[in-house]
């Protein structure tokens, strides 16, 4: 397989603190790769290193076939970077920003102008093209920022938390843009704190915590790592919940977990199918009335919890959203 990005044993320290402790990754050309991790995991450090902004102290990285440490200029010709914080000039218009960056990417005046128009259209910024970026909303800035990273039609793009701070509509729009890029053969490395985002967009995901890759694989592979389906039941009283633990423990592969409300219990089932029926029978025999009975595939939340021992920040929101559906 051809890799657009490969990283081997990357280490980085700031003073005493080691923020990357031997990261290794391989990203197939034309795929979307998600770096998933909580605050301070080292996602931005990885992206900035690959975009040639940080020196490599230990380890090796190649991007688009070129060594990041020794052939930085070649790498820069082939990448686009959208940093964690929108990097556009607030005192220029949207169009001026794109033309400037196109010129600096050595497209030539003519082509830079042409490319700017194309991107303004793709990112739905035509109407705002002549307005100062200082007057743009956060979502518009982000779109312009993403457009800017595509100006030179890069082979590889890096997106550092591209949807943080965006509303649902902008987020979905951005996801579609990422998919379009991938379909066109561009390799995308994106970082995110949102499990759902990695799940939705990425062909493969690496879970990063404290400068280390905790797990890597397709979203499905990662979910399979934490066992089969999850059974979730909701009961009317906390007392019933306690009583339900016994029959549920009998069918689960791990101890059932009661959530903070004290009314909802979840338990991981064996990969086989008999578990659900057994659980239903067990609960009925114990005379426990169940208000809600549902089975779900394990989410990346579960993967994350299992691998890192702590939940991601948005877990409660994501989990709440899921049960409402």
């Amino acid at each position, binding site marked *: 397989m051809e890799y657009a990005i490969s990283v081997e044993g990357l280490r980085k320290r700031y003073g005493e603190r080691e923020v990357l402790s031997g990261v290794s990754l391989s990203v197939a050309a034309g795929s979307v790769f998600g770096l998933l991790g909580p605050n301070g995991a080292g996602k931005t450090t990885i992206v900035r290193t690959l975009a040639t*902004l940080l020196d490599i102290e230990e380890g090796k990285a190649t991007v688009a076939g070129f060594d990041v440490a020794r052939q930085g200029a070649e790498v820069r010709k082939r*990448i*686009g970077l959208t*940093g964690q914080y929108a990097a556009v000039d607030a005192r220029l218009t949207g169009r001026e920003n794109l033309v*400037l960056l196109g010129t*600096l990417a*050595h497209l030539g005046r003519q082509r830079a102008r042409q490319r700017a128009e194309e991107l303004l259209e793709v990112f739905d910024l035509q109407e705002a093209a002549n307005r100062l970026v200082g007057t743009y909303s956060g979502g518009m800035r982000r779109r312009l920022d993403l457009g800017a990273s595509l100006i030179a039609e890069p082979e590889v793009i890096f997106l550092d938390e591209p949807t943080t701070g965006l509303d649902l509509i902008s987020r979905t729009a951005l996801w579609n843009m990422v998919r379009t890029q991938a379909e066109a053969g561009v390799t995308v490395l994106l970082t995110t704190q949102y499990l759902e985002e990695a799940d939705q967009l990425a062909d493969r995901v690496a879970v990063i915590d404290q400068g280390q890759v905790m797990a890597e694989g397709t979203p499905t592979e990662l979910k399979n790592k934490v066992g089969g389906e999850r059974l979730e039941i909701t009961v009317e009283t906390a007392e019933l919940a306690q009583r339900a633990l016994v029959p549920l423990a009998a069918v689960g592969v791990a101890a059932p977990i009661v959530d903070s409300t004290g009314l909802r219990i979840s338990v991981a089932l064996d990969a086989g199918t008999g578990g659900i029926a057994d659980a239903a029978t067990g609960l009925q025999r114990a005379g426990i009335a169940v208000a809600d009975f549902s089975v779900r595939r394990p989410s990346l939340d579960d993967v994350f919890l299992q691998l890192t021992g702590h939940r991601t920040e948005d877990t409660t929101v994501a989990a709440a959203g899921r049960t409402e559906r």
Partner: protein
Amino acid sequence: MSYVLTDSAALFGRHLTHFKRLPQQLISVTLMPIMFVFLFGYLFGSSMVVPDGKYLDYIMAGILAQMMLANAINTGVGVADDLNNGLVDRFRSLPMTQFSVLLGRTAADLVLNIIALLFMVLVGLLMGWRPHGSALSTIGGVALLLLLGYTMTWLGCLIGLTLRHPQVINSVAMAVTMPLAFLSAGFFPINNLPGWVSAIASWNPVSAIVTGVRELWGNPVGYGDDPSWPLRHPVPVSLITLIVLLLIIVPLATRAYRSAAAKTT
């Protein structure tokens, strides 16, 4: 190689667009000098005595030199701004010549300085200041001031990239430029000063620069009978000092750009 020029030109254009969008910037640069011409030239002028001439004719070079020194602040804050809002990261990820980022900015600041100086010369003329040298040497005086301004924009780049925080840049740049401006022959003839202060002031490069400008403009030099060595050869001394300073500061600022971009904000 030609990319240095096209990249610098593109960034130069960016800064000129900023000036066009915000012409008030010219006012903020010239407001202080206008106040100084007014206060020193008119109000205190009558009670200030310089040998062989009018105080207003004497003070113009000093006021304009101080205006050039203030570049360190504006440029420093501007560079730090790009650094802090991520634009430098973006530039660094592009296949452009990185030196152009500073070259484009300092070139644009030079243009702002030319406009500001011409404006101030006009204000001076309106208030009664007159150069008495040839047209060529008058232009030479302006050029010497511009060289000072250009050196200070590079110093501003160095300070801005090293310190990053606008407030800190402001106070450090002030702490550097204020003594340079006032512990010099910029505003008062230095032989009136107490012994050791006078010695410092006579070797302060700003004294040589303002004396050089006065000489070129045919304005009173005000150093009395026994000037120090730098003041006897003010033009060559200032030229050499400023060129040597540029040769030191430009590489330092370029290095600061590289290492500043490698840090996360």
